[in-house]
């Protein structure tokens, strides 16, 4: 695309050049961690992972619209990009992947990619999907009642939006005009179940008007579009105008998890075609077209990211496992 075009799009998105470069690096980092984690599971060094390949733009750019110091994120298992933006270090992520004692998310008690980090305002998630949605409304309710000027953003997949908790969480937020953004990552799949078997209406955002607040569906493969839409929703929430349901259409380039074989239900052709939509090269080209990036700086960036990830893997792999003597601890708070 012609340079001016890219610059225009960047400008109207509200991100400046430096922001764009940061977003790009976070996207590269999320991808690198996701890819490396996959390899680690193939080598048996890590026991489980849920790749986020294909939704880095959605996760990173949406989280970038938050106030990292004061806002809250209620994540789900593919929110790696958002975790990095919120302040989780690559080392912390890898401690989680290896289930080590120093993992700030759960001290190795939960599976990899199960996030939670109190100091960073990341509200713990378990595996039972959907439960996070009313929880996010509750975090936002507390912000409102306590006069915190904080916004809460909860991430979930379109499949999880089938749970009753989605309905109950959104309705409550609507009634109380809570400062919360519901970010639905619609990749068209709940493991092997296609959207057509999940909902007769493929657009999840259409549900929002039933709860009395806006819902939008956006291209989740373009970080600029995502940032712009989420920024609008976050500003709206912060100014007291209530929730927004943002649906980002994304792709799932990898299997559902390291335990899944997506070729049982998707064709290679389909997967190859989808790979053409990979948000990373697309954003890379835009940045190059705007002069914010060039082949060389891109390579430097990628090298630094790889080194960061490799170092974190080395560190986490060598870190101490949880002490078996602690297995029964912390069932009850003192």
């Amino acid at each position: 695309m012609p340079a001016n075009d890219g610059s225009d799009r960047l400008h109207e998105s509200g991100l400046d050049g430096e922001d764009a470069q940061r977003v790009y690096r976070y996207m590269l980092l999320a991808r690198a961690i996701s890819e490396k984690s996959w390899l680690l599971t193939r080598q048996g060094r890590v026991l489980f992972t849920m790749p986020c390949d294909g939704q880095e733009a959605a996760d990173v750019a949406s989280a970038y619209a938050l106030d990292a110091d004061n806002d809250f994120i209620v994540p789900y298992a593919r929110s790696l990009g958002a975790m990095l933006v919120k302040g989780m270090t690559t080392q912390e992520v890898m401690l989680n992947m290896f289930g080590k004692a120093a993992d700030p998310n759960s001290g190795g008690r939960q599976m990899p990619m199960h996030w939670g980090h109190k100091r960073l305002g990341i509200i713990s998630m378990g595996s039972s999907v959907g439960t996070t949605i009313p929880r996010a409304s509750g975090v936002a309710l507390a912000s409102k009642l306590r006069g915190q000027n904080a916004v809460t953003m909860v991430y979930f997949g379109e499949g999880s939006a089938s749970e009753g908790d989605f309905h109950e969480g959104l309705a409550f937020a609507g009634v109380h005009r809570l400062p919360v953004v519901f970010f639905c990552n619609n990749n068209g799949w709940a493991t092997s179940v296609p959207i057509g078997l999940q909902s007769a209406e493929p657009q999840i955002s259409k549900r929002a008007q039933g709860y009395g607040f806006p819902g939008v569906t956006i291209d989740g493969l373009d970080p600029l579009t995502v940032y712009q839409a989420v920024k609008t929703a976050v500003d709206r929430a912060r100014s007291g105008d209530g929730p927004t349901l943002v649906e980002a259409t994304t792709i799932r380039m990898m299997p559902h998890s390291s335990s899944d074989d997506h070729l049982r239900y998707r064709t290679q052709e389909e997967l190859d075609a989808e790979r053409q939509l990979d948000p990373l090269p697309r954003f890379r080209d835009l940045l190059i077209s705007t002069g914010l990036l060039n082949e060389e700086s891109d390579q430097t960036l990628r090298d630094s990211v790889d080194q960061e990830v490799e170092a974190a893997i080395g560190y986490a792999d060598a870190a101490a496992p949880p002490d078996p003597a602690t297995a029964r601890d912390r069932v009850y708070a003192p």
Partner: protein
Amino acid sequence: MVEKRLIEAVREGLREELAADPDVFLIGQDIGINGGVFRVTEGLLEEFGPRRVIDSPLAESGMVGVAIGAAMNGLRPVVEIQFADFIFPAFNQLVSEAARMYYRTNGEFAVPLVIRAPYGGGVRGGLYHSQSVEAYFAHVPGLKVVVPSSPHDAKGLLKAAIRDDNPVLFFEHKLAYNTVRGEVPDGDYTVPIGEAVVRREGRQLSLISYGLSVHHCLEAAETLAAEGIDCEVVDLRTVSPLDTVTLLESVKKTGRACIVHEDNLTGGVGAEVAAIIAKDAFEYLDAPVQRVAAPDVPSFPYSPTLEDALLPGPSDIIRVARELAAY
């Protein structure tokens, strides 16, 4: 001290905690202007306003999920489930989320949450307004389960529950609300969670119970005393965690145990108590460990002829106690 009804004691506990701690708030169905269907929260909306006393939509899972989130962001929610029977839609939020938040975050996130719910039969409420549900939650590590029998304990245990940093389920027998009276100290005091109490001293057998059934045990003990059967009555007060020390002490002394609850027999709290006794008081037992509980039907049916045929009461306790004493 003045005599108060159990419902007044609960209300007083709520009011005092709302007044003392700005982080405490109430959420439930019809608890606002209507004061709750049993009127437990009567007057609290007027006193504390709609930000502290929130009428919830008809959605238990969402209500509890919201409360968990609020608790994780600094508040101390007290949820009213209109009838204990309607806690099941929120079962996943309670068991999968509230109960294990502290464990799964390795101690980072606590969930200071109280779930209040009226339980129990005898009010012609039929299958869905009569249940005892404590056993489901007593099985869940990370939850505490409290079932007070007296106004004094109701207020003191409720305050302890609200100040506890763990999720606490607090069950109030709806028949006890207005029929059970007792002295309630004015002002602040707590009754510690996890401590049973001996309501009546006795030498021959231990009646172990909680909630309204404690009163059935005391009534039965009177009758039995007249027959020369000297019963001790242990009020567990907290069914999770159990005060095994107090209940074992009693059984070791008497050598005979009968656990009494209104919940159905199989898999009820009585099963765990009996198992603990069979293991840790084995040497002291002079007779089989008995249980008096509702029969294994789904819940109490509506029609009085049917409900009365199923509700366990003093006469059932007396019958079993006589067998035990004669053993």
